[in-house]
């Protein structure tokens, strides 16, 4: 092989990798432009203020974001209340207490949990958890936001546990030893040394779990009752932003106000997940300063 050829091969690969890198950015920008373009078309017809303050989503007449947004936030909030403590405690158990057989079963089992398709989780919600909720609380219908929150918690758990466990595991043994060396118990070491040091990673874990919960569609579509009424609590049937887009996109006439409205919903969803990311990054940075 002469040197000319070698230079050519070298360059070819450089361009190949460059293309791959730029393709990702291209896709991201493309999606963003598509969302903005269609949302603008929507906002020409419906005033943005009416959209974000409207309390009714009834696509022939009213395009009010609030009931859908409230549904999404309610179910995500409920899921996080369940998943964050459970996830962090499990991560601590795996990383700091579990040994041998327990650990070797627990970790793959949790990863397996994330391999369950969301439609199966939705199924579980319809046939097991929803009847359970209606029996325990004496409700006629268990397909409500509590049901959705429990299912989303199950779905967010593997992400939270895996990422949080990595972060906890990455805390250097040397500083744990320093803490034990001062006479600290396991609990004080965990509370005052391990958790603060792992904090950025734990925030990332929670953030990813929350992103998973907000963006999840199939499960909430199946198991939360599909009600467009404004939610009043965890026993209300709801319909999230994602479920609304999924249900209505298939039937909506092309290029109508309704069609553009679904893009506006998607844009809102995108803005929510993005602000969660930015916020989490800022919290993580503030704490990382000490490391």
């Amino acid at each position, binding site marked *: 092989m002469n040197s000319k050829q070698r230079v050519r091969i070298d360059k070819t690969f450089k361009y190949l990798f460059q293309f791959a890198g730029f393709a990702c950015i291209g896709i991201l920008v493309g999606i963003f432009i598509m969302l903005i373009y269609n949302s603008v078309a929507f906002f020409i017809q419906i005033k943005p203020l009416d959209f974000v303050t409207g309390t009714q989503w009834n696509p022939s007449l009213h395009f009010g974001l609030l009931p859908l947004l409230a549904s999404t936030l309610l179910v995500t909030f409920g899921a996080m209340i369940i998943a964050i403590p459970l996830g962090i405690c499990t991560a601590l158990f795996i990383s700091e207490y579990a*040994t041998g057989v327990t650990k070797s079963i627990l970790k793959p089992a949790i990863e397996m949990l994330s391999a369950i398709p969301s439609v199966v989780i939705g199924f579980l919600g319809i046939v097991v958890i929803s009847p359970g909720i209606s029996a325990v609380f004496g409700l006629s219908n268990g397909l409500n936001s509590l049901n959705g929150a429990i299912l989303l918690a199950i779905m967010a758990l593997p992400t939270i546990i895996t990422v949080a466990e990595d972060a906890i595991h990455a805390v*250097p043994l*040397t*500083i744990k*030893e*320093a*803490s*034990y*060396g*001062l*006479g*600290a*118990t396991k609990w*004080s070491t965990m509370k*005052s*040394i391990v958790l*603060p*040091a792992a904090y950025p990673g734990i925030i990332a874990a929670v953030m990813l779990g929350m992103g998973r919960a907000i963006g999840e569609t199939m499960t909430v579509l199946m198991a939360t009752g599909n009600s467009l009424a404004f939610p009043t609590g965890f026993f209300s049937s709801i319909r999230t932003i994602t479920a609304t887009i999924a249900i209505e996109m298939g039937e909506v006439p092309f290029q109508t106000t309704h069609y553009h409205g679904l893009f506006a919903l998607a844009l809102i969803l995108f803005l929510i997940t993005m602000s969660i990311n930015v916020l989490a990054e800022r919290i993580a940075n503030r704490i990382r*300063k*000490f*490391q």
Partner: protein
Amino acid sequence: MQTTKIQTKTIIDISDLNLFFGEKQVLKNIGMNIAEKMVTALIGPSGCGKSTLLRTLNRMHDLSPDAHISGDISIDGQNIFHKNIIVNNLRKKVGMVFQKPNPFPKSIYDNIAYGLQINGFSKEKIPQIVEESLHKSYLFEEVKDKLHEPATRLSGGQQQRLCIARTIAVKPDIILMDEPCSALDPLSTLKIEELILDLKKDYTIVIVTHNMQQAVRVSDFTAFMYLGELVEFDETIKIFNNPEKQLTKNYINGHFG
């Protein structure tokens, strides 16, 4: 030499100590008495078990499930392996400084205050003890204006002195030092050595070192270990000038290690 024998009181009494990691025997029948308010150096080639021996003294091996220990270690006449011993209390009494400076990812102040909080020192006394400890470890002048900045911004030598400050803050009787200068430059090493000589007035110090000149400079007694056995243990002057065993002589003359 016999006539100049230093008068001492034993604080740590080690007898018939054997330690296994799984199948591998790392310490073999160690027996030695460590003198109170003296500096005892543990020397020997890498892998001879000196750090392992040091870490048995505050039961750091409790953290490794495959370590098995037999034999006795008594500190102030109490067997540290007895089931009534609360290991956290033992570790408060027997402090430890590690090979690499390992400050907590907290502020300078909190690095010291943490040990005080977990050991139940009263809240009002903590600021005063923090300051005292920083004075004792020759660090106060360098850090007095930045007590609430992250400890990780200090230089390596300052970090190690902070680790010493944090150890002495909880008022131990014994300080174990595991090659405390191996990651430091010569000037920082010198400062730590001065500090060790100063601390000797109040504390019993056991120091593992790779550096034989350091053992000569700071220690009163030296134990030479080889392949898990205690080869020779005597006054430092004796070990370095007139060792009994040929093996010791070869090691201190740099024939191996």
